[in-house]
């Protein structure tokens, strides 16, 4: 490996990555470009990324005025936060019990978890809808959050992570006088942050973007989540207002991208499930 071939390899690698990045970014480039174009400019025979007349202001104004963005974003934050918190609060003790305590149901739990991973919400939407209607909880945060309160993926992820936590640490905690719930709260959770961060990204991404379930259970606009807001820019029969649609999409995508940028290092670490580095 001479210095020359090394440099060549690096350039090739960097080039490949950049090319791939460009391809992956292409849709976003068009999205941003479209968000800046006047409606009459969007579809034309000549391809141009830079708008002839800058209409960002106009499209973003439309995006913000046509729907109540603050309400949508707020609902998105509330729903995602609730789902995430409940999922974590439910999954961590369960994963802890499965990973570190001896009990006979652990094996069958594992089977249930794997099965749960397979059932899409689309499949069970109808029975859930009927049940929620009977309980008169449609159109509420409860309806939006409840079906996702149990995340088998979370259990799976935490289980892997907890297995790497040394048994001795838990034994030490018991000898120090902690109860099992105390161990979960004081030892497991503080050390599971990488895994929790990793899961947070998966969970928030999925539910921030979920269109299917909110569409089913929410008819009251007060509970609409961001994807529902995008509906206001769609007019199937007559062609969409693409400029405003892209502007709105940008607005609701940006928070997630920012969140990922901030958390991405911990995220990858978390999935690595290397356990404790203390």
């Amino acid at each position: 490996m001479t210095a020359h071939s090394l440099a060549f390899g690096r350039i090739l690698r960097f080039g490949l990555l950049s090319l791939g990045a460009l391809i992956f970014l292409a849709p976003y480039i068009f999205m941003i470009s479209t968000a800046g174009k006047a409606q009459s400019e969007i579809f034309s025979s000549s391809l141009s990324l830079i708008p002839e007349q800058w209409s960002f202001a106009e499209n973003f104004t439309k995006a913000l005025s046509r729907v109540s963005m603050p309400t949508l974003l707020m609902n998105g934050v509330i729903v995602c936060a609730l789902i995430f918190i409940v999922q974590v609060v439910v999954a961590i003790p369960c994963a802890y019990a499965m990973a570190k305590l001896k009990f006979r149901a652990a094996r069958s739990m594992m089977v249930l978890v794997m099965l749960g991973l397979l059932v899409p919400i689309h499949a069970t939407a109808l029975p859930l809808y009927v049940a929620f209607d009977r309980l008169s909880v449609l159109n509420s945060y409860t309806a939006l959050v409840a079906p996702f309160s149990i995340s088998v993926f979370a259990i799976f992820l935490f289980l892997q992570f907890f297995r790497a936590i040394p048994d001795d640490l838990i034994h030490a905690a018991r000898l120090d006088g902690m109860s099992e719930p105390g161990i979960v709260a004081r030892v497991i959770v503080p050390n599971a942050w990488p895994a929790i961060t990793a899961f947070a990204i998966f969970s928030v991404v999925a539910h921030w973007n979920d269109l299917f379930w909110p569409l089913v259970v929410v008819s009251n606009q007060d509970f609409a989540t961001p994807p529902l807001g995008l509906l206001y820019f769609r007019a199937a029969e007559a062609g969409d207002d693409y400029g405003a649609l892209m502007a709105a999409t940008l607005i609701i995508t940006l928070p997630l991208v920012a969140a990922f940028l901030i958390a991405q290092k911990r995220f990858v670490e978390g999935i690595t499930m290397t356990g404790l580095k203390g």
Partner: protein
Amino acid sequence: ETMLTVHYPMPGFFKDVMETISKKFMEENPDIRIAFANPSATYEEGIQTIMRQAGTTEMPDITFIGLNRLRMLDERDIPVDLGPFIEKDGNMAEQGFSENILKLAQVSGRQVGLAFATSNPIMYYNADLVRQAGGDPEKPPKTWDEVIALGGKIKALGNGNEGIDFRWQGDDWMFSALLFGAGGRMLNEDESKVTFNGPEGRKAIQVLDRMVKEGGLPVLTKQAGEQAFVAGKIGFAFQTTGALRNTIKNVGGKFDLRTAPIPLIDPVNGKLPTGGNAAVILTRDAEKQEAAWKFAKFAAGPYGASVVVPGTGYVPNNELAAKSPEYLANFYEENPLFRAGLEQMPRMIPWYAVPGTNGVKVTQSIVENLSRVVEQSATPEEALDDAAAEVESLLPRS
């Protein structure tokens, strides 16, 4: 004070319209308050929502349903029969609701709704391309033969230009336009047998076939077709007048956009299917029903029409609105593009929906067979016969 929950589809389209109308309505009726439920993206999703919510507390009081889906709703006994209200009113014609207009939202003689926004298929064309191809934009083609010939020439211009975009996807509306235009019917009188594979149907599907073969009709998805047309790459586009406002916006100054009535295979007896939606009352509460009836009439009435028409491109579903200068007369003077739809109003008949539970499947079956023609994977006759056979099997067994 009565509170009405209103549900409507396609918010990208109707949101402003609905808000304007309801604002005005509440001004005039201070004892009624309108609240909007979360709208649905399409007619289909709208119906699903209503079906799911039917009988639950979530059910809105009033909704707007695609005209071809009224039958399905009626068979499930979801809409409130408006007959008694009309009888009580007595003077519907004076309010601009002619018998013809009321009929659009009747199912087997029952008044299940009040047509709110109606449309018919028209011809959009790119005058620049027509001129380049040697046609005269001032004299748009009147027959399918002319359209196909000119389309072929436009395609021959090259440079990615296509001759025709015909919106055959999604549902059977545009097929109906060809079929009705030839004087055909979907089923026989007593709705027991398929008739769209008769001579009229054959002519209709042959026209489609020729559009592909000679007229430069490419295989495009619905959106792709619209986009290509507004980009100036397609000579003729056949679709609902309802898309007019958006098309104008999308085209901007890129080319000279014109509209004209759609050619009819039988120019004398030809009819056209009516698209659009009707206000349907769902609430079982008598007091709310009264309020809802008031709102439905207001929305479908002249004021409503004067909001809907300029904002969308739909044709006025109220005779007062079209004629009275107070409402739309001046508008049509100033906006000639909107006139094509208006001119065709006399030919509008209800968009046909087959009886039984398989209504949606029937439409899907027809669309699929049309796609075989467009993709040229089947001869028009094969496709038509297959469609007929399939639809036949989907009809309710009597």
